[in-house]
């Protein structure tokens, strides 16, 4: 027994340690994801019997105008959400100073991060209210007819993105502040001595050192942008007339309101496929980083 343990200890120990976490994660998360993909091949209302339709859902999906709207919105989200790292970095540079009160100020800037998206959505919906909202009041104050952002099929997605950016910028801000705190001061000093100032110092000396943080915040931002759901659900429920849906919301809408779980699963699968690109990218990066460190 002891011999056995000794001989196999090298793999038995990690196996024992990993048993529970992997079991739980494997059954609840991984298996469910696989199952969900499987459901995408059925016509199913979510409770009753399933009917195999093969690629039927996908065929319908690619002809569904709503799907194209969602896809387009997803792209808009993805592109605009990448403002979060940019603004986050700018804000981080702005806040990266030594003042007695700076800790509190930073904390205030971090707060959106801990708020539920549901709450943020509600607040921004009031903000945009075309009659009573702050935005409308401001517009009227300067003599402009207020635009009903959430009722405007062209603006609605941008309106929601702004709300979501609020939280996402806070997220990137935290990362960049941490990144800035790890900047090699000697490199900056060397840069100054070499005659770099202002933008060039930032561009050639500081930014390259933030490469890893930038990558991570960009990828996470992309993934968050694809995953976003709560805001849309709270602010517009996909409206007006489905113009603000994204894949995640459309999937929910199809499953819950239209009772089409199979179709929803197919939408989810497409979303998953898109996201896989970024997950894979992140994985490759992380694992390579990993190997480099070893």
């Amino acid at each position, binding site marked *: 027994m002891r011999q056995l343990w000794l001989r196999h200890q090298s793999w038995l120990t990690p196996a024992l340690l990993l048993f529970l976490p992997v079991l739980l994660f494997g059954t609840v998360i991984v298996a469910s994801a696989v199952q969900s993909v499987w459901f995408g091949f059925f016509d199913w209302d979510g409770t009753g019997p399933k009917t195999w339709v093969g690629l039927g859902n996908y065929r319908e999906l690619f002809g569904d105008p709503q799907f194209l709207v969602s896809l387009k919105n997803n792209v808009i989200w993805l592109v605009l959400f990448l403002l979060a790292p940019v603004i986050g970095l700018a804000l981080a540079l702005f806040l990266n100073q030594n003042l007695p009160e700076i800790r509190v100020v930073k904390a205030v800037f971090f707060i959106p991060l801990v708020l539920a998206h549901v709450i943020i959505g509600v607040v921004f919906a009031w903000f945009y209210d075309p009659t009573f909202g702050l935005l409308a009041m401001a517009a009227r104050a300067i003599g402009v007819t207020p635009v009903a952002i959430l009722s405007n099929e062209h603006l609605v997605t941008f309106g929601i993105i702004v709300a979501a950016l609020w939280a996402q910028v806070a997220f990137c801000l935290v990362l960049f502040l941490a990144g800035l705190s790890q900047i090699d001061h000697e490199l900056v000093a060397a840069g100054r*001595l070499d005659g770099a100032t202002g933008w060039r110092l930032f561009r050639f000396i500081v930014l390259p050192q933030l490469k890893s943080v930038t990558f991570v915040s960009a990828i996470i931002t992309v993934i968050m942008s694809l995953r976003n759901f709560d805001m849309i659900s709270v602010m517009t429920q996909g409206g007006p007339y489905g113009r603000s849906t994204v894949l995640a919301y459309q999937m929910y809408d199809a499953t819950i309101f239209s009772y089409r779980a199979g179709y929803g699963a197919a939408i989810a699968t497409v979303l998953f496929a898109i996201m896989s690109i970024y997950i894979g990218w992140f994985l490759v990066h992380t694992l390579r980083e990993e190997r480099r460190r070893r």
Partner: protein
Amino acid sequence: MASVSISNVQKSFGEVEILKGVSIDIADGEFVTLVGPSGCGKSTLLRMLAGLEKISGGTMAIDGQVVNDLPPKDRDIAMVFQSYALYPHMTVRENMAFSLRMRDASAEETRAKVDRAAEILGLGSLLDRFPKQLSGGQRQRVAMGRAIVRNPKVFLFDEPLSNLDAKLRVAMRGEIKELHQRLRTTTVYVTHDQIEAMTMASKVVVMREGRVEQVGPPLALYDRPGNMFVAGFIGSPSMNFIPGKVSGGEFLADCGLRLPLPGAPADAQRAVYGIRPEHCRLDPAGFEMNVVVVEPSGSETQIVLRQGGQDLVCLVHDRVDAQPGQAVRVLPDRAKAHLFDPETGVALTF
């Protein structure tokens, strides 16, 4: 190339006073080393000279021009950092060209200057590598290359060799020295390595707790330390210090030993007797002490002796066949002995 004049410079970080009035004059083309215990303010002084730290008081002048409020880029100074501070995302060539690029030098000029510096330092074949693909010594050389491309008025070095291993350190030391002989650029060099301080500079500045303790040519500091601190700091192994008093032309140590004096100080004066390990030799004419440790290292042997609670370290160039516990006779070289005031530590002349 330029002279540097530091007068009564002070520096505080918030409440804490780090530099308490430092004055150093450096002539054009001179090589000055700055030594002192960790935290005494060497780096701070250097960074102030570079313009990386504000000057709290006093003035710094380069070539007669006061630079207190000049930003780093206008001081025409190059600095080599302990960590080398190479830009990790640039190749060796780009690293060396960076300062020229920031000055909007033309492409040909840049190329010519970098190539020349690379040639001087033997970096020709490494120009396209990234810093992480270089060995420690090579990195060090690139850091120097980066400094010399610009042909600055003053070179600053902050412990540039401390990350290298012993052999490489010796080699690079030679290179830096040679470079200085070639370029004759005014240089300020911070180190905590005895040998570097002694062998490289024409002038050594010893600092302690934000003040200059002594300034002088290396051998002058070795031969005539101004106080106990400098005496103990310069030289390795450290000078032996033996408390006691002067009595009848001899030094009567508290431990009972009677030690020979070079001159004739006033009698009955309490003092500290200083003698370097290399100035003690085993000699039948000497006084008796017990051997504690014998450490032969091939070319020389270090012996720790003890008598009446007083330790004495001896460094002899022969093999010594003594065993711990054994008694031997040791004799200090009377001409090389020092006396210090036990209160102030100041060297006593006699």
